[in-house]
């Protein structure tokens, strides 16, 4: 249901009536709530917002909103969102992903979306595990975490998404915690407003396969320093960061993709002249 144009929108105007497939206690419920709060805070119309996703628990979010949704194939949400935003710059485009979808199968698109700096908001719900396929290690999983697929742990160093986002050129970098829906909503509000590619990593516990992540609520803390626009300073902070500093960590100054593009309005037939060699001579 959409409210009439004149009435202020509230978070529930952005929620659909679909019942999520998530487990009770999943952090993603709070992320959904934070997204709808942010959209209401910005007073965007649901029909002018598109939520694009890939595959995984987090990627179910589009249909739970009342916005336009695109639930595509595994790992390619940033590509679909890039095409949508490039073709329809008038829309507000959010991209929802997880640590498997976004950092493993979709890793290449993550690098190039940061580089390209399209005006998107990329929300990654990171729970350090593949939940939908029932508990395999993801790129952010700790090396010693045992699972059926890697009984001894992967032995692999964790992926550092924020450092990589900075190195690849993301224009806005923040970390949020699903256990603080209002704080997360405020971060998302700023990320959506911010021009260019905004990356918000949300720690969102998987209580089913990683019940120890319930302790994250004690580990997180507001970042002790103000955001910087200096990539060198941001790099030092992000590399030494323990993964639990919450807040805006970097605000860049790059011009978004396509912002200077000029489009003509010629008829396609007007291009034929170049092929008509007699007239062109």
């Amino acid at each position: 249901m959409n409210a009439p144009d004149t009435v202020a929108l509230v978070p529930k105007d952005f929620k659909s009536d679909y019942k999520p497939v998530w487990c009770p206690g999943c952090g993603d419920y709070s992320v959904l709530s934070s997204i709808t709060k942010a959209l209401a805070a910005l007073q965007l119309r649901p029909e002018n917002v598109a939520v694009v996703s890939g595959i995984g628990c987090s990627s179910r979010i589009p249909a739970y909103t009342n916005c336009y949704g695109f639930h595509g194939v595994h790992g390619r949400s940033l590509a679909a969102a890039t095409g949508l935003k490039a073709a329809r710059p008038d829309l507000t485009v959010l991209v929802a992903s997880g640590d498997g979808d976004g950092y493993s199968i979709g890793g290449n698109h993550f690098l190039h979306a940061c580089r390209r700096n399209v005006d998107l908001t990329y929300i990654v719900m990171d729970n350090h595990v593949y939940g939908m396929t029932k508990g395999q290690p993801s790129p952010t999983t700790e090396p010693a975490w045992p699972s059926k697929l890697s009984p001894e742990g992967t032995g692999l160093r964790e992926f550092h998404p924020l450092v990589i986002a900075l190195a690849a050129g993301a224009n806005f970098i923040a970390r949020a915690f699903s256990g603080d829906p209002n704080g997360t909503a405020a971060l998302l509000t700023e990320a959506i407003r911010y021009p260019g590619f905004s990356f918000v990593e949300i720690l969102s516990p998987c209580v089913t396969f990683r019940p120890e992540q319930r302790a994250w609520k004690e580990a997180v803390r507001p970042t002790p320093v103000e955001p910087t626009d200096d990539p060198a300073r941001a790099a030092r902070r992000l590399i030494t960061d323990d993964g639990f500093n919450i807040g805006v960590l970097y605000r860049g100054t790059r011009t978004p993709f396509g912002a200077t593009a000029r489009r003509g309005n010629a008829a396609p037939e007007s291009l034929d002249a170049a092929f008509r060699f007699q007239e062109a001579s």
Partner: protein
Amino acid sequence: MASIQATRATATGAPTSVSVALAGSGGAGVMTAGNMLLEAAAQAGYYGLMTRTSGPQIRGGEAAAMLRISTVANDGQDDRFQVLAAVDWQNVGRFAAEIPLDASSLILGDPDQGAPPEVFLKTGAQRFEVPFKRLAKQVSGGWPNMVALGVLAGLCGLPEDALERAVSRANRKGGEALAASLAAMRLGLEQARALGVAFTLAPPQPGPGRWLITGNEAAGAGALRGGVRFVAAYPITPATELLEWLAPAIGKVGGTLVQAEDELASINMILGASYGGVPSLTATSGPGLALMMESLGLGVAAEIPIVVVDVMRTGPSTGIATKSEQSDLNIALHGMHGDAPHVVVAPNSLADCLAATQWAVGIAESLQVPAIVLTDQYLGQARGVVDEPARAPDLPARHRAETGQPDYRRYALTEDGVSAMAIPGMAGITYTADGLEHGESGRPSSQASDHAAQMDKRARKLAGFDPGAYWASVEGEGDTAIVTFGSCTGPAREALARAQAGGLNARLVSLRLLSPAQPERLAQALEGVSRVLVLEQNHSGQLLRHLRAEYDLPGEVRSLRRAGPLPFHPGEIHDTLLQWSRA
């Protein structure tokens, strides 16, 4: 002056077509000279076709421009080349199979660059020595390729003013570079006269409105005419020129082109853009098409119209990246997992790349389905002088929902299977496009009944599609028929014309719409036929297998096929028909 025998004389004895090849190492400018020769032929009122071959090197490898200049339009090369000229011979012998010569051919080589490769000499062709490099040095800033241009144009009897216009258009800046090119070209003309041989092509039949265009450019122009305003793609030989033509062109008509990080990205970018209401296309070749398969299935399931142009090259794997083959038919028809009804269209001439691509966009948009356009390196990179390309038949535009439409269901089960599509920005009818199976509203569903209903809906869209007469090129009469597609069509058409001249009548059916299959139309086209020759350029007979699976073919069926990259020549197809007719 002796007259060299060229192809098939007219009633007055003058040949209607002459074929010449210009070869040399990369950087020698043989493609530049070839393009000028083609343009000069166009300026003089002839039709022309230039195909190209090159080695694998990025720069410095051997290359050859292969031209056919004629009084009538031809969509393929002839059986033999009358002239092979080479500014140098570095590895040009590798092209022997692609540049067939015989005892009536001429070989022009620069004596300072060594002898022509034995593989050419053993054809019995007459050998002439032309010191291209030394002649070029007589002109300050002169190049051997411009001398070769003059020699070839002189042998073909092209008028000097047409040649001057072509050289001038290629050197728009004028000045010393233009003067040097013209002077070197004139030295070549003198040299041709001194050789004492010439072709006396029948007079040209100039017509209005002819175009000089490549197949890749034609496909790009067709895309824009079809309404495409978003393109995302990853560079790949031999599709890149299509993208490079589109890059500046699409901006002029209000669209956008994005260079993607890979083909997985390009296909998903166009899905996203088309979901946003903007007709979208990508172009690629076999390896890229293989990467796109999963996401093409998303286009089928979520009913998002998109077009993929596959400029086929030899496979499998990297294959021969610069050379042609019709071997992606199987993957285009059957590459997706699940039952995924979609459209496959194949242009059957260089000029048809325009209309067929435009048509594919129209079908994709009206049926909300992915469409694959199968062209190939031969058509895509060929440049030709053609009559103004036809327009594709009009099709209904994408069926859009209406803002605020009550009880809107994105995947409503309609009679023809096509349901109204909401576009972001339309209030009151928001929905989620989903690769998950869904019910009519788009809500994900794992119920058997929803799966069956949506499968039926998606199949119904294609089953009910009426392609009209454009489904195939059906030509001629007779109890023998050639069934083919794509770049084999030109040589097949020419073979049938030769057969007819010899009193053997046969039909041509060149399938433009490869999927959905049109069994009733083909049965009608083949009524009274007792012999079917299936012609295709791949190793395993992919078209034959497709026909066997989808169609009842009448009478005896034979297959004429081989793997790329050698194109079929009209003569070998004609010979096959003749032998069969005598059997």
